[in-house]
């Protein structure tokens, strides 16, 4: 095939701007070759270069006591948990692939994030996911939902990582552009951490794992544009996952790292060989000479451009210590995987790509990479028109519902609140025998073998809050994820983030992004939970509008003593129920307002970070002193939903409750308010005095709510819900929607 002539028109078709194409020519001092143009276009795409976000991301707190590897330094962040062990974790989006090919899109999202973890030398010990879809009454939404869940399940189940927690929300704004964010957590010996670096003149460069095909060419570029009617044609840029090969790759990779055979290793995700060769070289201030003839191919007639841009999955680039080639090959042979030397590291900071004896590309790696000379932009911001309008909502003009019981049942069975068991039963949540608390509680708890420790993990983000108030809403996402791990008995350690926003060239979207970063920065500093890395996904738009800005937070916490593991469900009849924290009758952005009044209005609940932090201290202190038997945070749906969950989350041993919820002004406000920084706890009768003494001395207000016990949830001597009925609403609501014919 004759290569097309490289000119501005072709550059624009590749997604580069005129200005950017000018820079390419200037930096090279000539017109790029076709292969070079391809490499620049993917490396300078939003997906790889973070060109429109990196300047703001650098304002986030990215260091802290326990951080061993900070954001952006390696494939994932790394946090010290003592005993010579560290936790590597990261979250990443696979939104656009999932929008056109839900099963493979989601599956390869899981595969990609797992590789980021095990290239650090860490064995994946848990997977989480954060999902957003349209309304389940829509048939295409059900197709996407079903495919994404199956894709995540099939990949993780086969690979052998327990999928232990996450969140799923449904809202019309995600209809054509669902969000699929996958997170993985790995455990590594701090002495065996691998780095994504290439150095040492003459060290051989290996490609290992799957062979290279034409799948996924321009996947990174596809991720950097809006979803439209034309997106369906991009189905071929979605890669195909092979979890079996990934499992073999995991074992072989950990073996070569353990045997100290390598200098550096990087996963091949977006932009394939282009990205891994240039990033590893740039990091090591070195270069590489690569011969593409050596790359194992699926189709032999692939040209240099295609090989460099392929996003075939389950591949790694490895720089091996000279002299260790045979040992490395032996290990990959054992696992029946390809392992080929495709080049070597050079001292010259230059990337040389040969194919059929011809030099196809010659680029200094620093020109290509984030942190090097890839473009960095600050975009214009503008407060969106809706913002003042939604803020001006007056809740007092809202009609009171006729029947509180019906209203509650409607909210409690809304897919956003109802149990996600339909989802998580499709995930193996137990493999590797570390799962102390699996899906369904506030956070998952994973045992760290041969220690007395565990880690707690959860993802959180209420996109509706962030839409109504990007800064405060993002603070809430951080606060809630911290609260969730605290309820499990863990000290929050650090976060990873997945920032799902619209097109950054629209000033309103960039305003949301900027405000969200401000809020995240403030909250993370407050909780001393630095950002260890993550992912930005712009262009989450459909022809109708952008999705709600959704900065998903993945929080990891540490439980220093296994005895501190705490769960949400009521444990004993006659335990005393208390609420820690205070209600402000806040219904802006609530599930109540959306489900019952079909409104997305008002301000999101206010968040006082100091009050939140005080609450965390109190709860952890109570847990440490063994004074509480359960802890569950009050979030979407308000106190009534939280109470009902406490009653039935353990559906084998449900326990009812008799409670009195104080009404400030209106029942609907008090019952369904989503005021932050509130946790429901239970206390044994004999610990009442001690509990109240400690709670009184804290800065957190608290009040007695009632007593656990019986077969129903009784509210204010007025409303009664049988546990069986609550369980039916909670556990069967999503299955009923999924079984519905349309």
């Amino acid at each position, binding site marked *: 095939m004759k290569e097309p002539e490289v000119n501005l028109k072709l550059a624009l078709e590749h997604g580069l701007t005129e200005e950017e194409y000018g820079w390419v020519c200037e930096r090279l001092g000539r017109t790029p070759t076709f292969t070079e143009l391809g490499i620049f276009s993917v490396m300078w795409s939003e997906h790889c270069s973070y060109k429109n976000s990196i300047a703001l991301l650098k304002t986030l707190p990215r260091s802290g006591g326990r951080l061993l590897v900070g954001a952006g330094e390696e494939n994932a962040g790394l946090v010290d948990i003592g005993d010579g062990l560290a936790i590597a974790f990261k979250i990443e989006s696979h939104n656009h692939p999932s929008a056109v090919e839900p099963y493979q899109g989601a599956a390869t999202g899981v595969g990609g994030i797992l590789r980021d973890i095990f290239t650090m030398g860490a064995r994946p010990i848990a997977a989480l996911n954060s999902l957003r879809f349209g309304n389940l009454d829509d048939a295409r939404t059900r197709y996407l939902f079903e495919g994404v869940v*199956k894709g995540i*399940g*099939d990949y993780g*189940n*086969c*690979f*052998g990582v327990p999928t232990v927690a996450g969140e799923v929300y449904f809202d019309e704004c995600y209809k054509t552009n669902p969000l699929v964010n996958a997170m993985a957590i790995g455990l590594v010996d701090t002495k065996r951490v691998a780095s994504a670096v290439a150095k040492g003149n003459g060290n051989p460069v290996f490609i290992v794992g799957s062979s290279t095909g034409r799948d996924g060419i321009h996947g990174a570029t596809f991720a950097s544009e809006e979803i439209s009617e034309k997106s369906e044609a991009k189905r071929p840029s979605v890669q195909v996952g*092979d*979890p*079996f*090969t990934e*499992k*073999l790759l995991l074992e072989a990779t950990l073996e070569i790292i353990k045997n100290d055979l390598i200098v550096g290793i990087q996963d091949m995700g977006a932009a394939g060989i282009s990205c891994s060769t240039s990033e590893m070289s740039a990091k090591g201030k070195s270069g590489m000479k690569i011969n593409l003839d050596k790359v194992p191919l699926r189709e032999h007639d692939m040209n240099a451009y295609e090989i460099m841009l392929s996003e075939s999955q389950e591949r790694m680039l490895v720089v091996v210590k000279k002299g260790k080639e045979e040992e490395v090959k032996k290990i990959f042979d054992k*696992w*029946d995987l390809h392992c080929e030397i495709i080049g070597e590291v050079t001292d010259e900071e230059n990337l040389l790509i040969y194919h059929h004896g011809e030099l196809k590309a010659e680029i200094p790696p620093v020109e290509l990479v984030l942190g090097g000379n890839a473009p960095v932009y600050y975009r214009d911001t503008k407060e969106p028109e809706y913002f003042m309008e939604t803020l001006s909502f007056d809740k007092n003009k809202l009609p009171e519902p006729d029947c509180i019981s019906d209203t509650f049942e409607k909210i409690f069975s809304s897919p956003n609140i109802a149990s996600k068991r339909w989802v*998580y*039963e*499709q*995930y*193996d*949540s*137990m*493999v*590797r*025998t*570390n*799962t*102390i608390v699996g899906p369904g509680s506030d956070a998952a708890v994973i*045992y760290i*073998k041969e220690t007395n420790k565990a880690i707690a993990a959860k993802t959180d983000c209420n996109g509706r809050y962030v839409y109504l108030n990007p800064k405060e809403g993002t603070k809430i996402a951080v606060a809630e994820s911290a609260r969730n791990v605290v309820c499990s008995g863990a000290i929050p350690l650090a976060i990873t983030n997945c920032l799902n926003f619209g097109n950054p060239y629209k000033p309103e979207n960039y305003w949301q992004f900027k405000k969200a970063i401000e809020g995240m920065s403030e909250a993370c500093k407050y909780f001393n939970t630095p950002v260890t890395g993550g992912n930005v996904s712009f262009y989450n738009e459909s022809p109708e509008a952008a999705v709600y800005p959704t900065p998903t937070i993945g929080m990891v916490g540490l439980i220093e003593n*296994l005895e501190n593991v705490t769960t949400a469900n009521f444990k004993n009849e006659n335990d005393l129920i208390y609420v820690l924290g205070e209600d402000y009758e806040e219904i802006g952005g609530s599930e109540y307002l959306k489900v019952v009044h079909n409104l997305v209005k008002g301000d999101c609940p206010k968040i006082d970070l100091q009050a939140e932090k005080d609450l965390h201290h109190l709860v952890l202190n109570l847990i440490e002193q063994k004074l509480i038997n359960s802890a569950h945070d009050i979030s979407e749906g308000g106190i009534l939903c939280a109470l009902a969950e406490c009653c039935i989350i353990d559906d*084998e041993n449900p326990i009812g409750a008799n409670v009195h919820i104080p009404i400030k002004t209106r029942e609907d406000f008090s019952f369904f308010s989503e005021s932050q920084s509130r946790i429901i706890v239970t206390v044994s009768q004999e610990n009442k005095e001690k509990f109240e003494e400690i709670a009184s001395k804290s800065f957190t207000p608290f009040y007695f709510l009632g007593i656990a016990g019986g077969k129903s949830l009784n509210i204010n001597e007025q409303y009664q819900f049988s546990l069986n009925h609550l369980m039916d609403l909670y556990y069967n609501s999503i299955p009923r929607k999924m079984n519905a014919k349309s």
Partner: protein
Amino acid sequence: MKPKFGVVVFPGSNCDYDAYYSLKKVLHYNTEFIWHKEKDLKGSDVIILPGGFSYGDYLRTGAIARFSPVMDSVFSFAENGGIVIGICNGFQILLEIGLLPGVMLQNESLKFVCKDQYLLVENESTIFTNKIGKKVIKIPIKHGEGNYYADAETLKEIEGNNQVIFKYSSKEGKVEKKFNPNGSLNNIAGICNRKKNVMGLMPHPENACDPILGKTDGALIFKSVIENFTN
């Protein structure tokens, strides 16, 4: 001599380590891994074929693993009365190689299912169960193809010979369709061969051994086997 467990590792096994860990570190039994390319069973008294997705299960579950070199040795070992336990994917491999009768279909729901499951010990007189007794135990299941099927004649035979060891049940031990998680014939969760030295079961006892994780009923099966050896 303490009896020894050998846990076979196929490419794609992912509960191999779980079985090894639970047997060795939690229950403190003599346990060793056996790589699938080996023929030597390393003097094992009990062979575990673990759960997972051997060879990705891209063809049919267990269909390729049965041709692994180690399986020749496992087959003769079993024919000579050696004890073999196939868990989930291991059960599927035992069906494929013909050490156990019947086949495995996709779950009736066409979905993978992972949850804690009650099992009624149907035959309490095998070496796998005689120290448990006729009771209900709780062990997790996690599979996409656990819908056990056999033709009428085979079914009659295995039921007649008391080869059905575990059935899916309620907490109280009721064996009814609504407690069946995958559509298996007569709620069958685990069976053994005619000689009762080879057992296949879909539930994962190795995931229910460690008290730290709050589930220990799985250990009852391994303990039963070991006690039969030591007595």
